[in-house]
């Protein structure tokens, strides 16, 4: 009997011993397939810093936010909202934007705000951590270059935001993670004035201008260079009210000598001329199977095709070129750019459309590889800056110099010199030249905005039969409403007037 008790007790105690050993170790779980993000002043390594800037670039073109905001919606925002395209296929969000009936619940508006700030926040994290890096393996020059690139990209997105929404919140640091209350407080930021947003943009741009690489020093046109920053500065000064034409001229002149127009307009789109001399900032897409596995899928819903390659078949795609745009191409006898931008197909029997006949239905085909995702996207290219410089000349009364630049652009596509001879005509000539040269590249609506032409141009729009389209654009519609979801989440935000 005693033996039994001893045996049982031994069993019990060995179990207890087993239990108590290794207790605390069990609770020390650390992530394996994720990494703990350093916060505040904790230094990261040089490798971490390189990975972080890589992450910022990936974010700007990647599937989570970048491609939607920087590619897909850029064309909707620049071309569908303007007079270049109709919404196309049956999507209420696109259609209401096209018809100026969008409200604060519009899905495109909501996601663009979210995408933009997600990219900005990612840049903010990288900027904070790289700035805190004390690893000697990261040279001061490289560190500043990384910071410059990240700050440029942050400013680039703020530039989009301020033009779309007007007053927006400025967030330049990651949230405070000390505790729940501080975290919430640190992210509930009110809107700042448009001028303040531009100040923040310019501050980043000026920093970037001195630290990023030279035009030829970078491995590709996707990496931000001094040329990219100067080009953006020209665009910013053109857009910021009141327009500072001297600055536009100054920064354009910093850009133009470093680039040249491609001899053939089609080379821009044929996929064989990536990182060409005309590209200033170009999102390189190498297709679905490329090293980064990021393919540009946007063309598949613009041009599409039932066989994988472009044939326009299957269903009514988005972003249908407008009658007004096609008529403008035709009136200008601009066949090179029309052919490069638009393809007409007979879609009889598949669907019908209120704007176009079935047997002659246009598709946007500047991006012509719906199958493999290899279409690059030019965020800035030389023709844009040349025409901007022309505007600056014209604004200062130098119509001849302006004409020289406009004619450079026209000559490439076999068009005769412009006939505009005075400042007023030249203004319209440049506007039209920009429209045709840069169609479907996301510029048109913003050009109309900065030149104050949006309301008259849009309200004069007619359909193919010459009937007015009655967009009836109001002044308040020149900025989007703040998305309702954001107003709901952040009580400090105020809705833009009249929405």
């Amino acid at each position: 009997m005693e033996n039994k008790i001893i045996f049982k007790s031994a069993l019990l105690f060995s179990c207890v011993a087993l239990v108590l050993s290794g207790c605390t170790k069990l609770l020390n779980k650390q992530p394996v397939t994720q990494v703990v993000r350093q916060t505040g002043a904790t230094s990261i390594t040089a490798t971490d810093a390189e990975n972080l800037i890589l992450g910022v670039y990936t974010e700007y073109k990647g599937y989570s936010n970048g491609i939607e905001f920087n590619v897909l919606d850029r064309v909707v925002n620049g071309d569908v909202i303007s007079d270049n395209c109709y919404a196309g296929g049956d999507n209420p969000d696109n259609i209401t934007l096209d018809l100026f009936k969008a409200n604060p619940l519009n899905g495109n508006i909501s996601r663009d705000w979210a995408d933009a700030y997600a990219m900005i926040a990612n840049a903010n994290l990288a900027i904070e951590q790289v700035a805190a890096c004390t690893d000697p393996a990261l040279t001061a020059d490289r560190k500043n270059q990384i910071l410059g690139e990240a700050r440029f990209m942050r400013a680039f997105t703020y530039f989009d935001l301020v033009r779309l929404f007007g007053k927006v919140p400025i967030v330049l640091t990651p949230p405070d993670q000390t505790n729940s209350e501080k975290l919430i407080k640190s992210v509930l930021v009110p809107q700042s004035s448009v001028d303040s947003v531009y100040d923040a943009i310019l501050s980043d741009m000026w920093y970037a201008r001195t630290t990023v690489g030279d035009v030829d020093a970078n491995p590709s046109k996707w990496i931000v260079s001094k040329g990219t920053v100067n080009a953006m500065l020209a665009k910013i000064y053109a857009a910021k009210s009141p327009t500072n034409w001297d600055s536009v001229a100054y920064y354009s002149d910093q850009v133009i000598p470093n680039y040249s127009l491609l001899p053939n307009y089609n080379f821009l789109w044929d996929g064989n001329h990536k990182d060409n001399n005309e590209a200033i900032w170009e999102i390189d897409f190498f297709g679905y199977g490329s090293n980064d596995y990021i393919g540009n899928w946007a063309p598949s819903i613009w041009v599409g095709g039932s066989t994988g390659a472009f044939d326009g078949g299957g269903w009514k795609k988005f972003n249908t070129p407008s009658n007004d745009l096609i008529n403008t191409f035709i009136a200008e006898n601009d066949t090179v750019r029309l052919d490069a931008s638009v393809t007409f197909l007979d879609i009889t029997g598949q669907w019908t459309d209120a704007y176009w006949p079935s047997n002659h239905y246009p598709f946007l085909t500047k991006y012509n590889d719906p199958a493999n995702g290899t279409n690059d996207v030019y965020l800035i290219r030389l023709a844009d800056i040349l025409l901007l410089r022309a505007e600056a000349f014209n604004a200062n009364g130098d119509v001849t110099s302006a004409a020289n630049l406009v004619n450079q652009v026209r000559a490439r596509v076999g068009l005769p010199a412009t006939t505009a001879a005075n400042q007023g005509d030249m203004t319209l000539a440049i506007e039209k030249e920009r429209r045709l040269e840069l169609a479907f590249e996301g510029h048109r609506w913003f050009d109309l905005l900065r030149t104050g032409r949006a309301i008259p141009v849009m309200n004069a729009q007619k359909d193919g039969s010459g009937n007015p389209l009655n967009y009836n654009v109001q002044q308040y519609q020149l900025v989007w409403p703040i998305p309702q979801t954001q107003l709901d989440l952040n009580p400090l935000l105020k809705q833009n007037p009249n929405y």
Partner: protein
Amino acid sequence: MRLKQKPNTNWRGGAGFALLTIKSKNMKKLPPPDGRSNPRLLFKLFVIMKLSIVLVLLAVLEVKAGVYAQGSITLNMQQVEIQKVLSRIEKQGEFRFLYNYDLESLKKKVDANFQQSTIKDVLNTVFANTDLTYKLLENNLVVVISNTQENQDIRVTGKVTGANNEPLSGVSVQVKGTNIGTATNNSGEYTLSAAENATLRFSYIGYADKEVEVKGQNVVNVQLSTAEKSLDQVVVVGYGSQRKKDLTGAVSVVTAADIANRPIIDASEALQGKAAGVEVTSNSGKPGAGLTIRVRGSSSISAGNDPLYIIDGIPTTDISSFNPNDIESISILKDAASASIYGTRAANGVVVITTKKGVPGKSKISFSTYFGTSSATKKLSVLNGKQYQDYANEQKQSTVITDSMVQANNINWPNEVLQNGAQQNYQLSIAGGSEKTQHYISLNYTNQKGIIKPANFDRLTGRINLTAKANDWLTLITSTVISRSHNNDVTDNASVARGGVVLSALETPPTVPKFNADGTIGVNPLTGWDNPLGAILGSYTKNLNDRLLSNLGADVKLFKGLVFQSRFGIDYQNNQATSFLDPYLTVNGRNTQGQQSQTKSNIFTWLSEQTLNYTTTWGKSHFSVLAGWTAQDEHTDQTTISGSFLDTIYRHLPWDQAYLRDSIKSPASKYIDDWALISYLGRITYDFDGKYLLQANLRSDNSSKFAPGNRTAIFPSFSAGWRISQEDFMQSIAAINDLKLRVGWGQNGNQEGIGSYAYLPLYSIDPASGAPTYPTVAPQSLTWETSTQTNIGIDASFLNSRLIFSGDFYVKKTKNVLYNVQLPSQAGFSVAPVNGASMQNIGEEFLISSKNIVQGDLKWSTDFTISFNQNKITGLIGDITFVNGYGNVYARGNSIALARGYGLGEFYGYIAKGVDPLTGHELYMTNADTLSDNPSPSDRKLLGNAQPKFVYGMTNNLSYKNFDLTVFIQGSQGGKIFNAGRLEAEAMVNAANQSSAVLARWRQKGDITNIPGVSTDATTNNSLISTRFLEDGSYLRFKTITLAYRFSQKLINKLGLGAASLYVSGNNLITITKYKGFDPEVNSNGNPIRVNADGTQSNDNESRNISLGLDNGAYPQSKMFLVGLNISLK
């Protein structure tokens, strides 16, 4: 001498036992029951002897007792055993004795010197100073018996029957307080040896345990009643069990009988309408779609609201792999007092499931099966070709649909898509064992084919439960279940634009062909959306789940009253989710040229539980103390591979072969997750005389999910009960059998659904570039939420326990509610987990159980449960009072808000005020109390809540002779449903087909209708999220109607079977509701697992908890007819 004469109803020739009416110990010259000679022969002799004795006794009784003891005796014996003395008297020929061989006193040596003495004198002298007495019977028969009440084993036989007098085989019969036991045979009979003052304990699955005192009887016949009503019913609670009458917490019990003859695939379905305080909602009718279970409401926003399941001691959050037919009982620990022993995981209640165990006796082999056919509970009507043409041309303001298109195709898509489903189930089990070892082994296959292809679920499970008594102090216990299930999914709960098959069936125009000439699936050319065959044929998602759950344990009796229980368990899951998008058939497939992905995950959990349990009694005080330590560790390892750009010539290949031929293989991704929990637990239970009951629990948890320093939490609870019916002053009230008042208070925690590293700011690694992406943000101070619950309950039974009532009232307050705050986008993080919110649930729940008729062949009983719960968010973090961020409806925004002062699932939108006869536009109420057809978002209001005011269930069991009729109705009252499917089908904004309701649309000035006109400009103002689509989700449903026939014993015997029954059953046959969608039992966001775009899966607790009552085109519920058969072998 007490002689009983009982009508011998069980006399069946020689087959049955004679129901003897005399104590067998009085029989002389019977060998002991375990005699070593030919048992069969002995048995016969035994029977014959008994028969003769009976006959003799009957004869005796015929004559008046009192005429006996004739004759005289002369003896001269010294120091001989009494037994010898009696033998000698017999040899003299006048008297015969009946006595038990084993009586010790017969061996006593005595002197016997008698001359012509009477039998009385002789026996009085010989038996002096012994415990022996005698009775003189007619014909000079003398019965010698002992007065001693000590252990004198007698042979006890008897028959055990069920509620309808049917013999129950395999009933465990145990001599209380000993290891002696047996089981009934196929005729329900048993035989064992027991002390004449012993108590026999009869226990049988699904029936209440019954204890019967032998009181010296040789025959103890017992009728068992079904389990749940009995006060002596033993209820499994956390780390132990308690008699129901001793419970001080709120515990609901569902037994095997409640599940029997129902086509239940997921065990949690068994709780619907059966357990007060538990709300069960099918997420959809899709096979394997799962259920949403809420015990006493929801207490969390972002952490889980699902109860914790304990299967044979192993905690888990998913019981879909288990076979409900193996379940013996389910206890739902509802209040804090009963659940807090599970501490940090118990805030949402604990569902303790025990599976069947073997009982000593011959192995019982049982087989059951059913087959059923199912169809949609309802069909929705859509526009036909002509009506669609009319609509589409009006909407597009041009002839987009021509007559020839209508002539070419005029397909009723809902009819194409909704077909008949089927369900089948087979269960084979063997249960039995010896006194030392008991086994329960089962094999089950179940298959459910959905009413929309290719949805399908099948599962094969095997179980082995073993108990081995190694010796008098050590018992080994093991239970193991292994299961494999397949689930073919089809996309539902999604708009037609997102490929949802249900809305596609409603919205695909009749003019769209099934297939194009080239074999591709027909497309609505205006929208680019495939017809529903796209979802059915153009892609597939297949899930394979393997699971091994095994528990090994030992009970060691250290010394009297002290038991050490050791348990080690593992739960190993191997899941594989495989998806394929055909590169040719659908628009999306052609655009992406095929997509394939496969996610494999292994989840390994181990659990160690070591507890000490001490029980003692001081007078009328009973103490029991439990102390324990547990540790649990869960490790998940997940790998995803994916590929695309499959040449169409390979599209028919099996998945793996096709994958190898994908021309693009995306980088594989890897995910590892780990968490652990170490806990200490203790419980003290005290009762005085079964009258005053007290219990206290304490659990301390340490979780790896929180930052060091933040990891420990302590959860106490106290409860008390007062069995008023035990008080003296209640004894005179005969109508009340039992009356008990219960009061409890306690705290529980919740950490379910919180990421393992949620307190750390993290980056994921992009598998292609290695760059850090998808950062997360979290406050370091993150901790678990705590709910405090007070419960007051009353249990009563009346009229000989024919009427049982149980009621509970509770208040449950949760603070530090884990809340993934939706951040404004400028934060850069869509959400951050914080401890900020607070929540409250107040409710009442009642159970009434009544045996309405218990006469003869006719029996009728009714069980009714009803549960009320009021859920309210009492605070959100900081100054936030309102977040409209949930329940997204395609192209309309969010329909559900989180609002302080309101419950989860509060709908948010416009108040619709009908159609303007002038314009045909829907009008909405504005803040200025005016009507507008273009309202501002600020005009939106909180519109009502998805949570029901109460849910209820009623089961009626009617049995007459061999027929049993069960009618189970169940319902939910007062919840609202946002019918997003109807919103899409009546929106009239695009070229999608519409519901027939739009035939009543506004067409011209002056039309008075409640359906607006078409929207020609694509604005959605006529179909905003508004009260127009918010519907009453109340329903009353005849969930199950089952008619069963039990074959007569005669026939069964002829067939050589032990028992057999056949039944027909109808499920969801009738649903009474005003809801206009397919079915009011719907929760589009109920699925615990969200499949991400990249094929990975993640928990989406937010949606599950907040976006209640949204019908985004859920797979319809089905009604089912089935036929089932249950047989057991002899």
